[in-house]
């Protein structure tokens, strides 16, 4: 050890001089987490499943969000849909890496979120980009009557390469879930075009059964070939500190969102 190695100028803290990679140091940081916005409800509107269907699917859903505005604080994440699929197709054909694909796809969900915010504008909803979620969400919710955000998290070029293939693993389900987790939201509701999670793909297996409640670990262990939710969300739920459940409901069925907000057993509940 040479002389200069002792020369770091430290700020005194419990973690001073510690390796933040050391397992014991990491384990020693376990402690309770406070919910920052415990009254928040995160509602995710699917891209392909809802947005791409246009007004027949979206407008009744937005009406239902507005009906619930008095009773519940709602922030709305929006997925990208078919335009993201298209740019993934072109981007993959060009040989672009996952981080570039994630950056490109995030613009499609930003467009969808912006459209939703326009449709909710006269009810006092605002559109917030990621930096404004970080800085302004509490103030906006105090002043405004709800917020709409881009469901895809701001991972951009820093998106993880997936275990298999090149499709960015953190899509709008993951982004909306993580907003719920970091603020300690009351509920996280993913609105899709299926009634929930089935024990097989209902599109190819007519006898598939709806699962009303399941743990994320059990669902992962079933190794289903397709899921109505990004698989990474299931991993995130197993590590949840605050947001220990999500509900997947059919947003094409009127009343489902209200029932989910009220905590009624609709769709599929996935818990930690």
């Amino acid at each position, binding site marked *: 050890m040479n002389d200069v190695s002792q020369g770091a100028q430290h700020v005194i803290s419990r973690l001073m001089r510690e390796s933040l990679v050391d397992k014991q140091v*990491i384990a020693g940081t376990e402690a309770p987490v406070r919910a920052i916005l415990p009254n928040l409800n995160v509602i995710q509107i699917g891209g392909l499943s809802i947005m791409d269907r246009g007004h027949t699917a979206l407008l009744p859903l937005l009406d239902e969000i507005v009906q619930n505005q008095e009773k519940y604080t709602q922030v709305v994440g929006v997925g990208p849909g078919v335009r993201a699929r298209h740019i993934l197709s072109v981007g993959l054909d060009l*040989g672009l890496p996952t981080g570039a694909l994630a950056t490109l796809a995030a613009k499609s969900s930003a467009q969808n979120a912006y459209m939703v915010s326009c449709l909710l504008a006269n009810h006092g909803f605002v559109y917030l980009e990621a930096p404004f979620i970080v800085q302004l969400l509490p103030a906006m919710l105090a002043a405004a009557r709800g917020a709409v955000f881009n469901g895809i998290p701001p991972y951009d070029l820093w*998106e993880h390469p997936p275990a*298999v293939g090149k499709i960015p693993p953190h899509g709008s389900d993951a982004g909306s879930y993580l907003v719920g987790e970091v603020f300690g939201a009351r509920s996280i509701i993913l609105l899709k075009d299926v009634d929930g999670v089935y024990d097989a793909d209902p599109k190819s297996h007519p006898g598939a059964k709806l699962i009303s409640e399941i743990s994320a670990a059990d669902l992962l262990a079933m190794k289903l070939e397709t899921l109505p939710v990004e698989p990474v969300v299931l991993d995130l739920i197993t590590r949840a500190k605050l947001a220990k459940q999500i509900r997947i409901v059919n947003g094409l069925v009127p009343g489902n969102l209200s029932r989910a907000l009220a905590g009624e057993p609709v769709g599929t509940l996935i818990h930690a």
Partner: protein
Amino acid sequence: MTGNEMLTELGKRLVSGSLSDMALQRATDATPNVAILPWANVVKIGGQSIMDRGRAAVGPVVDEIVANLPRHKMILGTGAGTRARHVYSLAIDLGLPVGVLTVLGTAVAWQNAQMLHYLMAKHGIAFLEPEGFASLPHYLMERGAVICQGMPPYKLWEGNPLVGRIPPQRTDTGCFLIAEVFGARKMIFVKDEDGLFTADPKKDKGATHIPRISVQDLLQRDLDDLVVERAVLELMLRARNISEIQFVNGLKPGQLTAALDGEPVGTVIYNAQMVGRA
């Protein structure tokens, strides 16, 4: 549908199928890999290990980077260090979630990047925020290096760690992912040790140096402490472009230059499954 005629076969499946479909994900494997900046080297300057030591450590590292400007193009990312440890301790004590700790830690890496920028400004070296990365090729071509803060821009969207409360993806991970997405020539971590040891050499005098090890072997050893964030090792297994990362001692002049020149100084961690590929 006639509108789909321009799509590739894979594209037709992408616009109609579920992205969580494993068969579809496997099909995306068979697409080409473009290296966006194949001549760029990502160099991470440690926070606690280099920046917190002040002039005694930072001065020689800056001199060495400047000396390499004519020969190597470098994306310089900074670590966070002792102020991050303080703010993490405080924020954990206050009950704040991991995403908030990431926002706080990012500010510390940013401070270090700014300081490095002030020291290198007279050589024309710019500092770039993640939002400014589109200008990065220009600065690299014109000036040979750029400075960025090392944290990935996950902010409140950082996932929880498996154990504890410290953000699992910090500046090692952020710099590694920059190297991976750009298909960089090298990923070099500048720290205050000669690389990887069998235990923390600051605490265990019997620790022995490991000059070269596969990431598979390293993960299997399940060491209590490591020279790099575990997330980097896990991401190495999935990386398509970066097949090895190198750790050098920034307190020993010449090691960074040797690593940039392709010499096996410090420790190299390599992906055994990528050897001979590409």
